[in-house]
């Protein structure tokens, strides 16, 4: 029987890793991910897993060793946050380009500088074009579920792409939550045995990984990588269907919430979706036509689902927990806005940058935001497109 437990996000992710029992974990501690590494270390010490745990001297080496392990033919996992992910930058691109199905938990934290340890999405958003599948989690339950699904997605024979599962630092990683966890053997059956293609350790069939790839082939290889990402959405949905049969919990690329008849909506990723859902519930009781679109999978970018979900709306606020410093809104805003431009009557879109460096966003903030959107519907005046929520401007 599945079990109801009370644990923090970090504990839930570490638990998923124990149940996955990967061959190799190479990881380096960084706040707020540290607990995952610590808890997993005790699993290794207590022989609850059979994993080779590589206590690397940096995140760069964590990803480099994960690449070596995965190319060797092992199931490899790691976890990091913020500057740790930034330090991996060079090699996360290589992991994706070598088509290595590494699964990495990213506990979202603001990038330095100035140094800050709290949540925003500047770390994983910066890695959005690295070729990794990115799955954002709303709470610890989703982080746990996404880690397990991540293995099946990454290792799918048509993909062989690395997967980043994110959860908001402290807000999810350090908050106690009720969640349902699966039995160990159910997880083992669900993920199955890893069958590597062209492992380095197949000495009889030597292969060369990471050759110099010049103008005569590089482009074709990049095109193949893009194609794998293009079909990844379908595979992520198939894996979610299988996972629903096992867990009873359903997942899509996006999660529409009261959008059918909504006039205004937010588009949001991560834990803020939970806060926004509570606001929608409250406003719906007042008869307000408000809704929410949570993006679960940001890479591949689910543009079809987003277009479908947002059609017919009047005003949409697109929430970014990171700034791109392009002076034209954050990454979520730009991509969502670009996707829905193909609608015959696209909704008015506003960019809201919020919550940087762990700045709290609460029910009152979101309720105020919905109120502002309704005002726009009423007045027909969109006003400033580019907005900041919860920042002191003077």
């Amino acid at each position, binding site marked *: 029987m599945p079990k109801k437990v009370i644990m923090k996000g970090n504990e839930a992710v570490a638990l998923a890793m124990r149940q996955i029992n990967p*061959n*190799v974990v*190479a990881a380096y501690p960084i706040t707020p991910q540290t607990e995952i590494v610590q808890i997993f270390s005790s699993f290794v010490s207590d022989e609850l897993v*059979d*994993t*080779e745990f*590589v*206590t*690397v*001297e*940096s995140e*760069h*080496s964590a990803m*480099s*060793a*994960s*690449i*070596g*392990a*995965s*190319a*060797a*033919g*092992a199931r*490899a996992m790691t976890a990091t946050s913020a500057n740790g992910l930034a330090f991996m930058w*060079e*090699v996360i691109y*290589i992991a994706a380009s070598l088509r290595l199905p590494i699964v990495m938990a990213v506990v979202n934290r603001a990038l330095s500088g100035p140094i800050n340890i709290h949540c925003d999405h500047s770390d994983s958003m910066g890695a959005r074009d690295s070729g990794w599948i990115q799955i954002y989690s709303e709470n610890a339950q989703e982080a746990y579920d996404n880690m397990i699904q991540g293995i099946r997605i990454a290792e799918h024979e048509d993909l062989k792409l690395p997967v980043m599962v994110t959860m908001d630092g402290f807000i999810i990683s350090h908050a106690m939550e009720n969640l349902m966890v699966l039995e160990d053997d159910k997880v083992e059956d669900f993920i199955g045995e890893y069958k590597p293609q062209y492992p*380095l*350790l*197949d*000495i009889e069939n*030597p*292969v*060369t*990984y*990471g*050759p*110099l*790839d*010049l103008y005569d*082939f590089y482009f074709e290889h990049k095109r193949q990588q893009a194609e794998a990402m293009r079909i990844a959405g379908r595979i992520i949905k198939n894996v979610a269907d299988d996972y629903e049969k096992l867990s009873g919990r359903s997942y899509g690329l996006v999660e529409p919430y009261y959008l059918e008849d909504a006039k205004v909506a937010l588009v949001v990723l991560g834990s803020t979706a939970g806060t926004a859902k509570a606001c929608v519930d409250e406003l719906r009781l007042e008869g307000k036509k408000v809704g929410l679109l949570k993006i679960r999978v940001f890479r591949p970018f689910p543009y079809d689902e987003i277009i479908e979900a947002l059609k017919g709306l009047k005003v949409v606020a697109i929430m970014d927990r990171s700034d791109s410093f392009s002076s034209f809104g954050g990454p979520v805003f730009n991509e969502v806005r670009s996707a829905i431009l193909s609608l015959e009557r696209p909704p008015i879109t506003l960019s809201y940058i919020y919550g940087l460096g762990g700045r709290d966003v609460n029910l009152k903030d979101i309720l105020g935001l919905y109120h502002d959107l309704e005002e726009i519907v009423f007045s027909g005046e969109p006003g400033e497109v580019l907005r900041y929520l919860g920042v002191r401007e003077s």
Partner: protein
Amino acid sequence: MASLKELAGGTPNLLTGGHRLCAGCGAPIIVRQVLAVAGRDVVISCATGCLEVATSIYPYTSWAVPFIHNAFENAAATISGVESAYKVLRRRGKLSKDIKFITFGGDGGTYDIGLQSLSGAMERGHRMLYVCYDNGAYMNTGIQRSSATPRGANTTTSPVGKGLKAGKPQYRKDLTGIMAAHDIPYVAQVSPYNWRDLTKKVEKALSVDGPSFINALSPCPRGWITNTPDTIELTRVAVDTCFWPLYEVEDGRWKVNYKPKEKRPLIDWLKMQGRFKHLFNPENQGIIEELQADVNRRWEKLLNKAGESV
């Protein structure tokens, strides 16, 4: 131990011909000597550099053994991941073969940008051999100085000019010493002219239960401005002048493997190379003496560590 005949081609060539390394390059000579000992049951990782770009141009590869290139600074971390995978897959009964793990990196990927990755892998105790082919500069990007470049060398980032009359101002980093300070089971310095010494050391390095490091002198005719047929001779003179002593550190015990009967003056080695040409100009008087004094000091220090008299 491999015989000279085997080294010359009696064993299957695991780094095949057709690669694009320059004539006279020391790297493929070193790799072939290492692989002649290691045999087929190896996995190679390689740092970005001349050896990597010239031996694995897609869709071709010169490597008849499993090979991975990841990036410039992480060849040691990469092979540590491969070795960890091997350990766990063996433990789980998925593999039975005895496989060796070898990394090749130039001095750029080893002394400089890759030092942290190398140090970490050595400290963690992976069963791996790291071989540095030290050609004394960033040759792949066009002869820029590294921390392995000898003092006085003319490189493209220590170019001899009006203000920099004597080339690179700094002495070399003692990387072999730094690796010995990691207290790993086996560290050695080799020179390809002495294939018997080199192959014996590779054999030792691959037999220890833990990490090992070998530093190999690797002439670069383009960077050193030398004649291609002189490559092997250059590696001999470097040893005979004690610029590049042959020694090993086995479980903490230092041993000098070759003491020249008559130590040749450093000038014999310098004058073979265009990169030191300016040192013979009148304005650089005294520099060669200083370089000689440094070689003497390091040689005496080494003899001391090995418990030998000068």
